[in-house]
């Protein structure tokens, strides 16, 4: 296939974050162990094959010990895990049987190991207890670790990459993303994920060009292939020819100039033509992002997601550890505010080996406030850390995924308990901090007025709200296009939240991705929103849009929009009215860049 290796290939995906980058591909391959070749071994090679298998087991074992040593948890449980897994590596049923099959069937070690691990899987079919049945995953994990060393596909550690590359991965987990060192990564491409998937959000927060949802990037791209990633149009080009390279180098320069222009103007406030000022805040997940928050002149952190720290540690952090982190963010952002959102995942996923039962629908499962109310010990630890950090800056507390009033009342009890404990411990803290609720479940929209009586502010999380209202999984490429912020149902929901907020006198912030897309801004403004929180990279663009709007005009436009029944009609009205104001849509962005 030497010929096709040099032919230019174009693949279309979904734009993750805009910008162009050109560089060498680096494939993050975790699933490489799926394709296992079978071949026969001649008799005098059996010994060699056996040694190869033993060598792989040893390497996997050593690697495993290293990983476990990295958890600085209490020693006893660490040793337990170590002992258990080390026992598995050399278990008769896995190790012994694989050796037997290599010898008896005279097949390669990979095939023998796969055969054995399939047998093991089958053995567990008869186990009825779901917890015990899920233990088979421990074994599969161990055998996959060995397989990786056999086929030579070592588990990629993104933090170890030491050259400037473009990452090509099936998907990037939050943990992967937090390992990315920006000076090393030019951009990234993933097979899965849509614009508003978690990967997409990460892409935008990292401000590096990315294309998502390519579908087959990891199979089409080889390591060290030259890649062009055009995050604006969602196209990647593999092994571009000289003309293409030249064209894109030029586009890249123009794009960077355009970004610089926006950045220069970003420090002016977001005031409309009719003199009304809006607050543009940033969504962050890592402390490191504060730099970009400041660069883009955000009026505060509207959403500080706290999950990554937990996920990264692979254990539950202590109050002190959380406090240090939150304090740092609060201090860095002073005099602006920081809204800290409590844990928004199923916390058990934090543990290296999840003890919770697998959930069929994690998005509808034991997550966020539901998990926190079940594990109040963890929740109280986090709340105490937040209240303590609040003594060092302007901190707000935000509770995610609330679906009924009782949950909020329960949360308030726990906050009181946290306050009591902190008083007893004589720690410095601030209990007078604004309390907010995320409005992201349809039931919370309906109960907004009741919730409003219990809190100081609402934060509309449009990503989940849209997902739950329209029953669309953002990560599913088949339906991702149905994820529509301007859906009339979504707009009516926001409208009703605004009404409830007005009645109960609470502030409203909108913190989903919707707030970072220029086309939605006149609509959100017209709906009465005054505070927007988005990925910091979007702030300069949104500011530009706001400066050109007249808030009174947006109100009358929204009145008209609310009578419409389809996304198409609504989008048309907005685009027609604000054609000159809105930056050209992403797939047209290149033309705009070309004109610059």
């Amino acid at each position, binding site marked *: 296939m030497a010929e096709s290796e040099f032919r230019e290939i174009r693949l279309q995906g979904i734009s993750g974050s805009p910008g162009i980058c050109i560089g060498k591909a680096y494939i993050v391959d975790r699933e490489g162990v799926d394709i296992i070749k079978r071949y026969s071994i001649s008799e005098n090679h059996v010994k060699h094959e056996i040694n190869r298998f033993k060598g792989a087991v040893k390497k996997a074992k050593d690697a495993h010990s290293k990983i476990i040593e990295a958890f600085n948890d209490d020693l006893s449980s660490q040793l337990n895990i170590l002992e258990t897994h080390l026992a598995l590596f050399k278990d008769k049923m896995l190790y012994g049987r694989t050796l037997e099959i290599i010898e008896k069937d005279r097949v390669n070690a990979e095939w023998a190991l796969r055969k054995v691990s399939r047998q093991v899987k089958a053995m567990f079919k008869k186990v009825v207890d779901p*917890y015990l049945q899920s233990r088979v995953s421990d074994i599969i994990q161990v055998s996959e670790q060995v397989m990786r060393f056999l086929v030579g596909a070592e588990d990629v550690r993104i933090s170890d990459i030491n050259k400037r590359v473009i990452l090509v991965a099936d998907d990037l987990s939050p943990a992967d993303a937090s390992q990315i060192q920006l000076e090393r990564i030019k951009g990234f491409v993933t097979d899965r994920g849509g614009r508003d998937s978690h990967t997409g959000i990460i892409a935008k927060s990292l401000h590096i060009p990315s294309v998502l949802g390519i579908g087959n990037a990891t199979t089409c791209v080889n390591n060290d292939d030259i890649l062009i990633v055009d995050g604006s149009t969602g196209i990647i080009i593999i092994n571009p020819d000289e003309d293409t390279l030249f064209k894109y180098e030029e586009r890249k320069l123009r794009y960077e100039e355009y970004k610089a222009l926006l950045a220069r103007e970003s420090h002016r406030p977001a005031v409309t033509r009719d003199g009304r000022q809006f607050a543009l805040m940033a969504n962050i997940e890592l402390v490191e992002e504060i730099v970009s928050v400041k660069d883009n002149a955000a009026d505060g952190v509207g959403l500080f997601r706290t999950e990554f720290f937990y996920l990264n540690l692979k254990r539950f952090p202590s109050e002190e550890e959380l406090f240090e982190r939150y304090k740092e963010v609060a201090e860095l952002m002073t005099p602006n505010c920081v809204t800290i959102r409590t844990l928004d995942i199923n916390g058990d996923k934090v543990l290296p080996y999840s003890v919770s039962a697998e959930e069929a629908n994690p998005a509808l499962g034991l997550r966020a406030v539901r998990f926190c109310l079940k594990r109040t010990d963890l929740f109280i630890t986090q709340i105490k850390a937040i209240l303590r950090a609040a003594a060092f800056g302007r901190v707000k507390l935000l509770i995610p995924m609330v679906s009924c009033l009782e949950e909020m009342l329960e949360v308030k009890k726990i906050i009181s308990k946290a306050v009591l404990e902190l008083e007893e411990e004589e720690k410095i803290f601030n209990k007078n901090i604004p309390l907010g609720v995320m409005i992201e479940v349809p039931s919370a929209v309906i109960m907004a007025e009741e919730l409003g009586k219990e809190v100081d502010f609402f934060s509309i999380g449009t990503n989940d709200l849209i997902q739950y209202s329209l029953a669309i999984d953002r990560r599913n490429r088949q339906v991702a296009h149905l994820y529509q912020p301007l859906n009339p149902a979504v707009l009516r929901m926001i409208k009703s939240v605004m009404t409830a907020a007005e009645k109960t006198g609470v502030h409203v912030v909108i913190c989903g991705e919707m707030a970072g897309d220029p086309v939605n801004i006149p609509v959100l403004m017209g709906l009465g929103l005054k505070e927007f929180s988005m990925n910091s990279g979007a702030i300069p663009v949104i500011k530009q849009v706001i400066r050109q709007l007249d808030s009174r005009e947006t109100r009358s436009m929204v009145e008209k929009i609310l009578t419409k029944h389809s996304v198409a009609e609504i989008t048309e009205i907005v685009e027609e009215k604000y054609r000159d104001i809105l930056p050209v849509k992403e797939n047209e962005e290149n033309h705009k860049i070309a004109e610059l």
Partner: protein
Amino acid sequence: MLMCRIKMQNQLGMHARPAAMISKIARTAHREVWIGDGNNRADASSVIDILSMGLTRGKEVLLEVEHKDDIKVLESIRELIEKGFGEDIDRKGIRGGH
């Protein structure tokens, strides 16, 4: 052959950690050590084989050793199970999984 019966005590049942503890002891025996539920039995020196029995809490476990000198092995395993492997017997502990 020596054998004894004992009920599984710990809440989580026979998961990886207890199985590893048992297999470690079983590997010191002179001959085979079996752990079963009356119908099937597993080689107690293999974590995987033990796990595949799916021994949940309250199940009766049949322990067998083939060599008479392995009575100590039998006794230590019985004691481990009886004490619930040092885990919570009543509550589901967060770290109990491993």
